[in-house]
């Protein structure tokens, strides 16, 4: 009886061993945790391309994620006056909330002197602005607002049309100022 139980456990352990071997990941990650839980549980559900597209709105500095569309400075100025000026000021320099346009007489951190990537302007307006109607602007409206703010910051010409293809190529004045964190564990004060 006792022997039988031991044999049973042996078979059980062997089965676990096989299962663990089969379900081990194909590749070993550098930071792969050395724990013993199964590599997959089968919880959750697959996310289809259509499902991902609903939420995947981010735009990277290389332009990945930008939607189709174009925008002009003229159109951007109209939208800005209508939907943005009450918070950011008539010319983008007055506030009361974040000042967006560089003013040599102010220490404010603006798009013109503190934003390293033009794509971030697009990404942020698209996801979070206007404050009282976040995410309500069309791609064309976001392109136009981005164009207007870049123009007001003297980064592009008034006639430049901003598109999916040229936004990532725009050189921002603050691009060279940013450095990664070099603090490390230890006594150094940085």
């Amino acid at each position: 009886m006792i022997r039988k139980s031991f044999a049973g456990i042996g078979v059980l352990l062997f089965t676990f061993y096989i299962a663990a071997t089969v379900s081990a990941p194909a590749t070993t990650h550098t930071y792969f945790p050395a724990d013993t839980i199964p590599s997959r549980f089968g919880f959750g559900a697959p996310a289809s391309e259509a499902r991902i597209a609903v939420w995947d709105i981010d735009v990277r500095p290389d332009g990945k994620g930008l939607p189709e569309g174009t925008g002009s400075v003229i159109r951007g100025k109209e939208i800005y006056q209508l939907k943005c000026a009450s918070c950011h000021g008539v010319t983008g320099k007055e506030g009361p909330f974040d000042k967006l346009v560089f003013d040599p007489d102010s220490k404010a951190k603006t798009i013109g002197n503190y934003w390293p990537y033009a794509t971030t302007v697009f990404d942020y307006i698209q996801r979070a602005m206007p404050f009282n109607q976040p995410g309500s602007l069309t791609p064309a409206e976001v392109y136009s607002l981005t164009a207007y703010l870049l123009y007001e910051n003297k980064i592009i010409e008034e006639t430049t049309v901003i598109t999916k293809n040229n936004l990532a190529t725009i050189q921002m004045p603050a691009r060279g100022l940013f450095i990664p964190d070099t603090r490390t564990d230890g006594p150094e004060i940085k």
Partner: protein
Amino acid sequence: MDTTRHKFSRREILKSTTIPFLVLAQSEQGKTWQIPSAEDDPAKIPGAPVGTLGTRSAFENLRKTASDISARTPLQDLHGMITPSDLHFERDHAGVPEINPEKHELLIHGMVERPLVFKLADLKRFPSVSRIAFLECSGNYRGKESGEISPQEICGLTSQSEWTGVKLSTLFREAGVRNTATWFLAEGGDAAVMTRSIPVRKGWEDAIVAYAQNGEAIRPEQGYPFRLFLPGYEGNTNIKWLRRIELSDEPFHTREETSKYTEVVGEGKIRQFSFVMDARSIITFPAYPYHVEKGWIEIKGIAWSGRGKIVRVDISTNGGKSWEKSELQDPVLDKAHTRFRFLWQWDGTETVILSRAVDETGYVQPTLKILKEARGGYMGYHYNPVTGWLLKPAGEVLFQPT
């Protein structure tokens, strides 16, 4: 429930009784004390019945101080190492969303073998983990010329909870994160659709998708139904109302990690992706607005480091001329608020008391002057200076920058 309690309120009954006269006595120090009268004795009246939800004493008035965008923990009024959940500091960028957990999902996609979505119930099926750790906003320092500023106002954007959830590494394995992925984007479901880029290494090491705080479901202000929790990392990266994680091979340079949460460090440079919170301490007693008397005083406070455990908290009672070791309260945990105590006899002469945290990596909390020099004269995020308190002979306690 309140109505039930009200029926039996002791205070209501006591209000209706009058105290006939006061009996006074003198203590050794010559202070006058009132001898309690039988009419004033709560032991003579049956108490309120049991309830379905605990309450704070009506004699306690704990409050966060709130501005339009943040609310600060009353550090000077708290004890021990856990911040009561309703007093946990708060920083929102577009308000607190009302999220129905049945409709909320976590999407993991990008550089993964299997893009997946999870509901709260799915996350709860995975092996769980709990961890006590601090959470601090990197913009957590204020001073005031007059010195009339409390620990809550100086650095009340730090709090500590026991967080429970599923390890992000478990979800990474479930989705099959590719070896070539080096960063991930964490995105919230609030109206700011808050986004931060996090190194994948942190996700494998100790990141948690937390659905509980101090034993109950995480509160809306803290990211209900779940948030990202990154031990030791600046508060903003701990995305609340988490709904999307996208694996990538480069950072996304979102607005919060470029135009915000970056610091000017001198020579015209701006430091970016400063994730780890350096070691820090604050004396929470004696502190403004409290007054103290000469004689025995237990100096107490909290110390913490995003780089590991606190190994020592030094105390100076003479403005930094000399330092002594304080006593640390067990348990001393990794990346956690640690209580320190130092028993001191004050002779009543004007002096400045200071605390200085040292962590296990050998980092010693700097003075404001040293820190400012190291940052090229600029102030900004990640300011963790030694904070002093000036004790005036009359017992007034005022903030003293270092």
